[in-house]
Each structure stands twice: as C-alpha cells, then as structure tokens.
C-alpha cells in the first residue's frame, strides 16, 4: 500500500517530535543545574546501585577516620603525659642517688625526701589525668580516679582502682585497635620475681616460693633476753628494751676498760656511779643492742653469751616464734594474700624489716618508700637507709622502664593510627573519584547535549510549522 499521509498523522508526528526533543532539552537542563548525571535511581539503576555501595563504603571509611582522629588525640595526649612522667621519675632517681652519696646529712635528706614526695604527688596527678572527661590511665573503669591512697597494716600505700582493660576503637571491618594503656601496666605493672629483704634484722628469703604484692613489712619483735655470763653483770628490766635476737657473744675486758658485743666495736666501760652504770646500752656494728646493769659486777674479766628470743609477723597480730634454725619458715597474711618464706637463721635483731616483692611495687609506693627512708622516722643509720633505698631502687628503675615502654607503645600506635588514617585518606579520594565518575555530570558533554537538543527542537518547530501550513486549500482561490 502506498504511503497515504494525513493531516492528523502529520500533526501527531510534529507534535511527538517536538515533545521528544523538548524532553531531551529538559533532561540536559536538569543535569546541568544539579551537576548529577542522573536525578533518580531508575535513570541509571546500575550506576545508582554502584554509587550507593561506594557511598556506604565511603561512610564506613569516614567513621574509621573519625574514630582514628579521636584515638590519635587520646594517644598523643597520653604520650605527652608519659613524657612528663619520664622526666619526673628521672628527677626522683637523681635526687635519691644524691642522697646516697655520703656527703649529705640528715637535714639534707629530709629536704630530699620532701622533693621526692612532691614528685610523687605530681606523678599521681599525672596518672589521674583526664582528657575530654575521661581518665587516661584507668583502663575502661571510669567510675573513680585510677590511683588513690590505700592503707596496708598502717602503712600508706597507693592502690590502682581502674581495670586492666584497654579502650578499643573499630578502625576497619572487624579490626579493633587499643588506644589507652591501663595505668596498671604503666605505673603499677606486676612482674613478680620473689621477695627481697632490706637486711635490717638479718632475716632472709626462705627456700620456697613467695607470694605478695608491693612492699610489706616483716615485723620482728624482741621478746626476751638471756644473759649467760658470770661475774655479776645483769640485764636491765629483765631484757625489755633490748633488740638483739639469737646468740651473741659478750666480752668484758677490765684491763682495757672495754665491753664488746660480738665483734665490736669495743665500748668503754661506764664509770662507777654514773647514770649508765646501772643501765648501759651496748650495741654492735649491726645495731643489735642489749642493756646491761654493772651494779653487781665483780670487776673481773668475763666472757659469755647473750641470747635474744623473738617472734616475727606479717600482719602484726599473728606471731611466729623465731627458732633460729629453719631456713624456710612460712608466714601467711590471709588478708592481703601474702605468703612469705623466711630464712630465720641469720636474724640478729628486732625491727621492721622492709620486704619488697620484686616486680610488684608500684612507682608511687617506691617513691614513698624512698622518701620515708630518707626522712628516717625510725632512726636508721645511714647504712641502713642506703640498704632500704637500694632495695626499692630496682623497683623505681623497673617502673621507669615500664613508663618508657608504654611511651614507645603509644608512639607506635600513634604511628599506626596515622598510617591507617593516611591509607583511609587515599581510599577516600579513590572512592570519591569513583563516585564522581558515576554520579557527576560531565559538564562539557552535558552542555553540548543541551545545545544540540535546543537546536534540534528549533529545527523541528520550524519544519513542523511549514509542514502544517501546506494545504491544497492555499491554491483553491
């Protein structure tokens, strides 16, 4: 059949092509004004779905970047505080070392004790620091300050009240990263290595394994004294006030006019009628002492022994008699879960023996103990003080090492965080460019499309109007 156009079909044709071209123009116009290649997901379902996936990945990325930024802040804050702690501990160490060099007198040491206490209190403030309302060194237990004073059998100690957990952040898929280091790992790390004794009383570590934390005091009590010497020298007040324990030798040399306990030093005999004649305190080089009454002394040379009996205790209430023969006496303090094995064979005097469970004394207790010793409330000799300070020096160094280790851990984590952050930054750029490639309109292309659509529309309109004007009627006049 031959083509038989009609006016109606011509009209419909013109109308359709105008509508078509106009909608192309509107489409291009929408792309230009929104900058997006598609306005609705159905314009490009595949692209839209891919964009949505990429967006969700970019969102997750952003979450990690935000978490990392928060974590890095906290890490850096912690690192800077630990840097300060490092300095403070070095200072305390230098001060304590200075106190030991022999040229200091008791007053100097008291001043140094004050300085060390001050450092301790600064360090305590630092360990209890908060960043954005959060204790930095409390683990994940934010209910109270991590470090505060506690009392152990009358001795002031500092306890840790946080927990041993580390705050974690999600920095990828199921990749978690710890940001905080609990204070218990920095200032109060426990790495038990057994008990060590300062050596004041002669008590030493027994053969069995011990258990305990921090520095405890072994109370060694003098109970009674027995004097085995002829010649009329007697004990004062039946030995109350003596401190020697175990077997000691006593020799009186009237020719030299001296009296000697054990290996000395030799002391001059009190003169008759002097106040010390009836109560003469004889001490040896180790500070063991016995009180002698010369009132009934016959004046001859005498050699004999003086024997002290005593007991020891961890808690000051349950006492174990010192037999003097065992090298492994077990002492238990159930309240603090402490078990101490004592070699009692060397005990020669009473006193408060400082026992440090190596590897368990926290920095604050170590500093407090040094300050306490330097202050010398219990009247120790310079040598005894030195022994005490040296005993906790190891603990000071160990804690110092822990602070430095924590610093390097924080540093490494911070580095890792930064590298992750930069990785995510790269990934983000990559994702953004992928999203842009899918979503964003190519302006030069779209503008060209728009111009083309506009021109085509105009041509359609002009051709259409001509087409519709044509009619036989025009010639029928």
């Amino acid at each position, binding site marked *: 059949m031959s*083509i*038989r*156009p*009609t*006016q*109606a*079909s011509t009209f*419909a044709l013109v109308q359709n092509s105008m509508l078509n071209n106009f909608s192309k123009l509107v489409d291009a116009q929408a792309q230009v004004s929104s900058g997006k290649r598609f306005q*609705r*997901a*159905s*314009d*490009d*379902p*595949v692209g*839209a*779905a891919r964009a*949505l*996936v990429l*967006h*969700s990945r970019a*969102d997750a990325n952003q*979450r990690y970047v*935000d*978490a990392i930024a*928060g974590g890095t802040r*906290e890490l850096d804050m912690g690192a800077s505080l630990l840097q300060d702690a490092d300095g403070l501990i070095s200072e305390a160490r230098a001060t304590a070392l200075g106190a030991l060099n022999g040229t200091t007198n008791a007053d100097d040491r008291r001043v140094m004790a004050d300085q060390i206490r001050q450092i301790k209190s600064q360090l305590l403030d630092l360990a209890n620091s908060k960043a*954005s*309302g*959060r*204790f930095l060194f*409390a*683990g*994940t*237990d*934010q*209910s109270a300050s991590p470090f505060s004073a506690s009392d152990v059998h009358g001795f002031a100690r500092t306890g840790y009240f946080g927990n*041993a*957990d580390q*705050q*974690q*952040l*999600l920095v990828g*898929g*199921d990749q*978690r990263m710890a940001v905080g280091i609990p204070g218990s790992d920095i200032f109060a790390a*426990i790495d*038990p*290595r057994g008990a060590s004794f300062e050596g004041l009383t002669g008590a030493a570590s027994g053969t*069995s*394994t*011990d*258990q305990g934390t921090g520095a405890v005091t072994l109370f060694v009590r003098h109970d009674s004294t027995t004097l085995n010497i002829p010649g009329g020298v007697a004990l004062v007040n039946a030995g109350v006030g003596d401190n020697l324990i175990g077997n000691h030798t006593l020799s009186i040399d009237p020719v030299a006019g001296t009296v000697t306990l054990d290996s000395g030093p030799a002391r001059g005999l009190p003169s008759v009628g002097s106040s010390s004649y009836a109560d003469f305190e004889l001490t040896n080089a180790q500070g063991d002492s016995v009180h002698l009454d010369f009132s009934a002394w016959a004046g001859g040379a005498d050699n004999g022994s003086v024997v002290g009996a005593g007991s020891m205790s961890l808690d000051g209430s349950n006492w174990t008699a010192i037999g003097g023969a065992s090298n492994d006496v077990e002492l*238990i303090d*159930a309240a603090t*879960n402490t*078990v101490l094995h004592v070699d009692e064979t060397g005990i020669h005097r009473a006193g408060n023996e400082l026992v440090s469970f190596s590897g368990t004394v926290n920095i604050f207790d170590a500093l407090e103990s040094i300050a306490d010793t330097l202050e010398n409330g219990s009247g120790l000799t310079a040598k005894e003080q030195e022994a005490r300070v040296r005993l906790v020096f190891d603990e000071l160094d160990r804690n110092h090492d822990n602070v430095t280790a924590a610093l390097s851990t924080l540093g490494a984590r911070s580095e890792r965080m930064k590298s992750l952050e930069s990785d995510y930054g790269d990934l983000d750029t990559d994702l953004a460019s992928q999203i842009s490639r899918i979503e964003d309109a190519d302006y030069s292309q779209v503008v060209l499309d728009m111009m083309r659509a506009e021109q085509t529309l105009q041509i359609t309109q002009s051709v259409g109007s001509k087409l519709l004007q044509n*009619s*036989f009627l025009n010639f*029928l006049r």
Partner: protein
Amino acid sequence: MSSLALNTGLKALLTAQSKLETIGHNVSNASTAGYSRQSLEVGTSPTMRLHGLLQGTGVQANVVRRTVDSLLQTRLSMQGSLVSRIDARVSGLSQAEALFASGSGGLDQLFKNFFSSLSTLSTTPEDTHLRSNAVQSAANLSSKFNALADGSLNIGADAIGRIQAQVGVVNQLAERISRLNGQILSTESAGAPANDLRDARERAVSELAKLTDVKTVEDGRGALRVLVAGQTLVSPVGFKQLEVTTDGRTDISIRVEGGNVDMAISGGEIGGLLSVLRDFLPGLKSDTDALARNFILEMNRAHSTGMPSSGPMRALVGSSRLVDQDSDGQVTDELLSNSGLPFDATSGDLFVNITDLASGAMTKHRVPIDAARTTVQDFLTALSRVPNLSASVDGQGRVEVQADSGFGFDFSPRLDVAPDDIASFGGGRASIAGGASEPYALALGSTLDFNGPLGAFSVAFQPNQFQSMGQATAEELAAALNSDANFQSNGLIANTVGGTLVVQSSGSGTSQSFTVTGGAASAVLGWAPGTTVTGKSLGVNPKISGTYSGAANDAWTFRPSADGTIGSTVGLKVDVFDQNGVQVAQLDVGANYQPGSEIEVRDGVKVAFGLGDVSAAHNDLFRLDVLADSDTADVLPALGINTLFVGNDAASMEVRADLLENPELFASSFNGASGDGGNVLRLLQKSESGIEGLAGLTFESNLTGVVGGVALELSSAREAGESEEFMRQSLESRRDQVSGVNVDEELARMIEAQQAYSAAGEYMRVVNQLSSDLFNIL
C-alpha cells in the same frame, strides 16, 4: 426520451451531491479520534432496452462505506492495553522509588547516621550525650522503617483507589458498547452499514482495552461480544457489571456481577495497578521487612548480651508478649520455641552472670534450652534456680527477670575472672572430686562412707533420689549427699563442676579435714578407701583475664598434672581440656613460675595462679566457660529482654520504650566497666559483616539491593513503556494511513464531484433545450 434523460441527469446530480456530502462528512471529521474515512460507492443504474438498444440509465449511489482494517484496529487496541498497563506500573514504581530515594533523609543516610553515632560513642563510651545520640539515631532509623512500611501501604491504597475508579469506567463502557450493539443491529438490519456507530463502538472497545485486557468476537449480524480476562462482559443481548471488594489497603478482588471467580486481569491500567499491588508491593514489603527483621535481630543479639555502663542490671521486663497458643488460659505451658514470640527461640544455651554488687564477685550459670522440650515454665524455673535470680511472667505475658537485693545480673559473654567459686582447685577447703564425670553407675544399696570431724558415717543412696540409679548425674548425687543429716552435721557439702561431683568441707583452713573410708560408690567415683583430704590456709584461687577471641563456645577444664605446689614443684603443669576432653593447652606452673603472673592459655584468655598446693590425686579441677555467644538459643531477642529494638518488621520496629526514656540503659559495655565500649564495638562490627539472614550480605548492601531492585524494575518498565508507545504510535499512524482523512485528497475529490455536478447540470440543460426546441417546432 426526455424523461429518461432527465432522470439520468437527476441521478448524476444526486450522486454528485451525495459524494459532496460524504466528502463534507470526512472533512469535518478529519480530526475526530477514531473516525474512519467514508466513501460513497457508486455504480451504474440498470440498463434498459429501448428501441432495441440496451441503454444505460446513468449513475446511482450504492452505499457509504468506511475504509477500515479491522485486524489493525484489533492490534491497536491490544497495543493500547499494553501501554496503559506499563504506564500504571511505572506510576506505582515511581512512587516506591521516591519513597526509597537515597540521600538526605533516606534509609541509607539513617543507617549511616546510626553507625556513625555508635562510632562516636565508642570513643567516649561513658558520655551521656553521645549515648542519647546513639539511642536517638536508632529511633530515627526505626521511624524511617515505619515510614517505608506506611508508604508502601499508601502506594497500595492509592492503586486500589484508582482500580475502583477505573472499574466504574469499565462498567460505563460495557453499557455503552451494549447500547451501540443494539443500535448497530437495528441500523444494519435495514441493510446499510452503520459506519459511525461502528466507529463509536470501536472507540469504546479501545477505551476499554486501555483499562483491562479485552477480547472481542463479532457475530454474523454485527453484534460484538466483549470478553474481559476470559469472562463475558458484553454479550450480543446485554452486558454485565464488574464488582469490587477490597480492604482498602492491601488487596482487591474484581468479579463479574453475580460471579464467584476473581478476575485475573493482566492488561490495561487495571492490570498494571493489580501487578503493582499483587507482585511488586508484596515483594518490596518482604524485602524491607527482611532487612528490618534481620537488623533488629542482629542488633538485639549484640545489645541483649551487653550491659549498661552502670554495670549489671537489677530487674528487666521483656518487651515481647507470650501467646497462649492452646487457649487453655495460661502461657507458661507452651514450648518456648513456639509461644508466639516475634523471633524464634531455638535449641542452645543462655548464660547468665550473677554479680554480688558489694564484692563484685561474679558467677556464670548456664541455662540450656531444647526447642523440642523446654516450655516457658521450664525456662522460668531454670532461670529462677540460678542463685539470687528470679524469673516470672507478668500479667501481660511478658517475662520478668529480677535479681535479689544486693545482686545484679547480665548476659554478657565476658569471662568469669574468678571461676573457681567452690575452691575445688587447690582451694582452702578440704576437697575431693570424682575421678570421672557423670553418669555414675550406682547400684541398689550403694553407699559412700566418710570419716568426718564428728566420726565415721555412711551415706546410703536410694533409688528415688535418681532418675536412673545406674546413670546417676553429678547433680542428683550432690543433692542426695547434701540431704543426708550426717553429711550435713559433719560440715560437708557436695558440689558439681561441669558434671563432676566434688565433696568438700564447708569451711576452709588447715583444720578442715575428712576421709573417704569406702562404700561401693567410692569405687564408682574413683576414690581409694582411706583417702584423707585437708584444707589449706591459702587457696590457689586462679584468676582469669583477657577476652576470649575464639569463634565457638567451649568450656575448659583445668587439672593439675601431679600433686605439688604452684611455683615450687619442679615440672608441675596444669592441663587444660575442652568440653570434648581434648587437651587444648598445658601450662607450666612449676619451679619457674612466679605465683600471680599471667600465663596465656589460648584465644586471648590468660590465667594466673596463686601460691598453693594442688592435687591430681584428689582430682582438683575448675571449669571456665569461654563464650563467643552467650545466647545461642536467641532467647533474649525472642523475649525482648535487654534489647535495643522491639518489633520484628519494618512496620512494628521501635526502640525499646524504657531505653528511649532513659538512654543510660543503652548496653555500651561488654564487661560492666563504666568506660568500656566493647559492646558498642560489637554493635558496630555488624555494620560491615555479612548477615546470615540476608544471604550473607551486609545491611547496607542489602539495602542497595532493595533500592536498586526498585530502580531497575522501574527503569526497565520505563524502557518497555517507551518502546511499546513507539509501537503504538506506529500502529496508530498505519491506521491513520488507512482510515484517516487526507483533506487535500478530499478537496481534490470535492472538485471532481463539483465538476460532475456541473456536468450533470449542463447535461440537463442540454436535454431541456432539446425538449424546448422540440416543443417549439411542434
């Protein structure tokens, strides 16, 4: 002759006039839709024999006929039906697309906001503002899900409204077609084709085809039978009406008046709307609901096994209501797995932690659930048997869990830091454990003989104390011993450790001692007669730390390798076995071990032993539950206990009401520490992990699938619409070529007719002239 000639002239005049009239009719209807151009069929008048000649008598108009291709007409209405169907679908799909549009306020955005709020909270878990923010974004997400469910329903309601309106139009068209049938019949019975009536009927059928799928059959007399979806709507003698019944929201059924079969209309606008209503929307709803349901479940699984930053909980009421399935007036006799809960409880274990709030001491308890056996009452009883915990059902059928005063509970998979509660591993109590685990093969008359602080005594076991005496469980044996008066008065107690019987002194210290002197049961328990056990002043007191990183739940049993002292005895080891008895670790606690220092067991779990004596001969042991999932039975999400969301689909999803009121209840903590964000991380980790219920997809990629599915369907519908519309236009133009009016053509024919008229007039003048001339001659 003249009258004949005049007559011939007159016929020519009349025919030309008729032609002009037909042309006039065509021209005036040139732009009438559905008009088929008409033409006058002209023939010669019958010839006459005059004077021996066969003489023509001129022209005559026979009939006015439409030019129509009825096959094309049918195809055109079918095509119109197709286009309308697609248009209706596109309009429904577009609404759905707008509803699910991504970007600001979109579901994807709200998912993003929710997870970002969790991520922010994880940096400072104790911050109350961040916690409120997290709860609020959860609420926003729920509202969006509600809006989506509502929006989908509205699309459905809209489609139903349109269907109802269009069915009304169908009924009008049926009536019109039937009327036209009658008119055509009566017109055509007179012999002339009813051109314009037929055009009108075709127009009506086309209109009808735009609404439904239509089949037409014309009978021999010209009456049209119209079938819609296989059922007669218009018959040659009458028509029927369609009737609609609907709930107004989700479904509609269309029947022929008086019929009882739902019409499966697939074509036209109604067919398109029905396909949106019946195929697309239910699919969309089920996709959205699956997303919501799985999201709720996964979030609730993690949330219910966490803790608020304030630590263990004192009392909780579930948000789901138990349903009385057998209508006997009580809900507690139903199976827990079939009690009308929004999520199913399955077979598995629920672990409950009870914390003494004053001392912080925690104990972990296992509540097993068997989907085929455990009733609600069994479950409540088992929970209530956990010390210091009680569970009941309130008046509204919700499960209530409450801890005794001074105690708290939680369901976290965290480790029990002091697992040896009964001190059966080198503890202070005099203690002896069974050499084997249950079942214990007791016989009638079996006894267990002891020498306790008050002297020798014997415990005789009775058959009624056991379900099966030959298969006695450790629990039954312990209960039997604990009920014995001598056993009690001698200060002894029986406990169990993971199916092993342990007999102990109730006090601790070196003064505590008893001897197993014999009895048939002692052989079953592997105890040599004369075995004496003594308490100690300090227990080994194992301490657990770390976080279990294994993928599956297990229970580890720790046993010493020999008798000895932790930290002293050379070569002393602690062997660790899993629940199948396979050794998983061996820990060196001999002379090189410093009591109190931590040893890694495995999978992130560490243990530290205190100084003390342990005994392999007395079967010292303790058990540690290591959990990846503390609610493998999904009981907590099912009962709605400590959940984040309530509901189980998009429409019912909501944040738990008391949580919304008090965001402090948000379970951010894994171990109960105030600044712990472990549970926030567990929630957060779900954002990028594959979800089992969503075919291993993440929430966001599943959402992409839903949104992308709508978009893809819409875009393909649009494309199909465009190509079908093009087809329709091309058919339309072909119809126009056949039946349309070309005005130019008509004008040309008008000139022809005009000239024919003039010629006939001239002819009549000549005939008239001849007649006059003849008269003049006469």
